[in-house]
């Protein structure tokens, strides 16, 4: 298979805010506002952003769980939203999702066997029960769960084990792409590392590609090959993970990197050199999405939206006043 796995072209998704009046439609705010990206097979893309950045909306668009208001999402060259409902359902086995909350995303009334087998039942209805159980057992083993898990219910597991169940469910149809939206954010640090290790192992063993979404820079930096930084529905910087975090060019990326001190660094040194943003204010239409908080903002940043442009080191940045 050649060509990219997933391509997003000028994706826009707007949501209504408030209710509008009797004759006036509700105002709409763009949660995702013109986002392009490409995911090559085997090259995991991390999406970093804070609350309200549009990263989870982007995940749902990538999974064709929501339709964009404009733009296209192509999986292996096919526009997912142009497919018929039944064709889309058949394609779903190739791209699966893991959610943040292993409590909310697993049906509490079903056994682990039913939960994990469900996507397979949809993708391959012909499977007989024996063969299906074999597949479930194999995938449970791959994610490090015991055979005995088969007949248990979600509440009988710890948070980390539940997330393993969710991962098993996502992998049972042998997808090429896994969209993981904050997959370790609800877990304790000691357990988070187990799940991150598992995700990295599975990537290698099964040739998976991740679209990995998190607010936690350290987690994304650790797992992703390429990274895209989002702010208020737009991409402000993207590029190889190693380059982007080592030398951020966009003030927002720099602030994100500086905001998380390593516990090994001298707090005094760190605070002295840290790049800080102001508290967020109201977003201005037609301005840089960081203009209200950026210490480098000039008149142009408040009057014009910077577009993404390519830099020499395989990186893109949308900023009029980039860091040197």
């Amino acid at each position: 298979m050649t060509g990219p796995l997933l391509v997003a072209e000028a994706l826009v998704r707007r949501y209504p805010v408030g209710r509008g009046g009797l004759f006036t439609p509700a105002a709409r705010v763009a949660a995702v506002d013109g986002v392009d990206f490409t995911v090559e097979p085997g090259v995991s893309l991390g999406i970093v952003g804070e609350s309200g950045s549009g990263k989870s909306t982007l995940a749902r668009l990538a999974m064709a769980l929501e339709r964009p208001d404009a733009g296209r999402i192509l999986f292996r060259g096919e526009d997912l939203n142009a497919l018929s409902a039944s064709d889309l359902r058949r394609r779903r086995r190739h791209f699966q999702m893991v959610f943040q909350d292993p409590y909310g995303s697993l049906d509490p009334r079903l056994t682990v066997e039913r939960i994990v087998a469900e996507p397979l039942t949809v993708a391959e209805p012909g499977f007989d029960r024996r063969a299906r159980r074999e597949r479930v057992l194999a995938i449970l083993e791959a994610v490090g769960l015991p055979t005995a898990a088969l007949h248990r219910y979600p509440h009988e597991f710890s948070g980390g084990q539940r997330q393993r169940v969710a991962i098993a469910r996502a992998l049972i149809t042998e997808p090429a792409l896994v969209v993981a939206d904050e997959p370790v954010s609800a877990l304790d640090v000691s357990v988070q590392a187990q799940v991150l290790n598992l995700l990295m192992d599975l990537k290698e063993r099964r040739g998976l590609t991740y679209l990995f979404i998190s607010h936690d820079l350290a987690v994304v930096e650790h797992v992703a090959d390429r990274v895209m930084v989002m702010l208020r529905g737009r991409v402000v910087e993207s590029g190889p993970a190693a380059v982007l975090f080592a030398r951020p060019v966009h003030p927002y990326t720099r602030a994100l990197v500086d905001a998380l001190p390593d516990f090994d660094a001298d707090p005094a040194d760190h605070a002295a050199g840290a790049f800080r943003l102001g508290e967020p204010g109201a977003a201005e239409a037609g301005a840089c999405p960081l203009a209200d908080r950026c210490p480098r903002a000039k008149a142009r940043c408040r009057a014009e939206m910077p577009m993404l442009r390519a830099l020499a080191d395989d990186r893109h940045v949308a900023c009029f006043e980039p860091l040197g």
Partner: protein
Amino acid sequence: MSAPLLDVRNLSVTLPFPSGPARVVRDLSFSLQAGERLGIVGESGSGKSMTALALIGLLPAIARTHGEIRFEGRDLVALPEPERAGLRGARIAMVFQEPMTSLNPVHRIGDQVAEPLLIHGRADRATARAEALRLLDRVGIPRARERLDAYPHELSGGQRQRVMIAMALACRPALLVADEPTSALDVTVQAGLIALLKELSVELGMALVIISHDLAVIGAIAERSLVMYGGAAMEEGASRAMFRAAIHPYTRGLVGASPGRHAVRGARLAAIPGTVPSPDRLPPGCPFHGRCARGTDLCRDMPPPFVGGPASRAACHHPERAP
């Protein structure tokens, strides 16, 4: 060395569990000098929040407390509630994780910041309002005068937490207890609040106990840290030195499990096997027994003593290095 501001001795907190009462804080001892900043690090179920509630005197009524919490020379555990209430918000103040649930949604923020001054009889209405304005301005609320009459929902999450801090500072407490004060906030907003808490502690000579699951947050703000697990103190020491070369296998485990600039990108993290146990399922000995690579039968049966010098202490039968 003068008498410590806060001296916690053999503190235990017991709560009822379906299987019977269990200790959620186990024999905890630590002390704090005036103006000092101590971090308490722990995962869920470590007992860190219960310790915070014990300090401020807001444990649920069903909790049983043993041991001593000596604060400015008085034992808070033995103090009758009316006297404790007199200290709360005056000498000891607290900031919680969720500013939206801790602020009253139907009262203007100026009135809420002024309230502790009125309750503790420190000021009349006009003086309290003027002080509220000064405090809001000090904690970095822009256009504080206009914001005095705003309601909590009109502010961002970061600004609401700044209002909480202003409220906590109103009576100039000697000790501020902050439980996950930045965990609900975006990292870029979190950074500003960490800097603010640290500045205020220095400027006002106010001692700070900051509680977090996040080593990086603790390391940025507290010169000394206490690591808790399963209700017990595992290790205590100077934050940076401790995270660099921990004595206790659990502290080492936490550091190794955290992705960050010290970890090699894409490499496997040193995960701690197993899960955090429920307080009613802990062994009589070290709570970390069962997940610890160095654990023995001794660890399971005998709680290790919390020993060491003034620089660092740890509770471990088989430490990674000498304390």
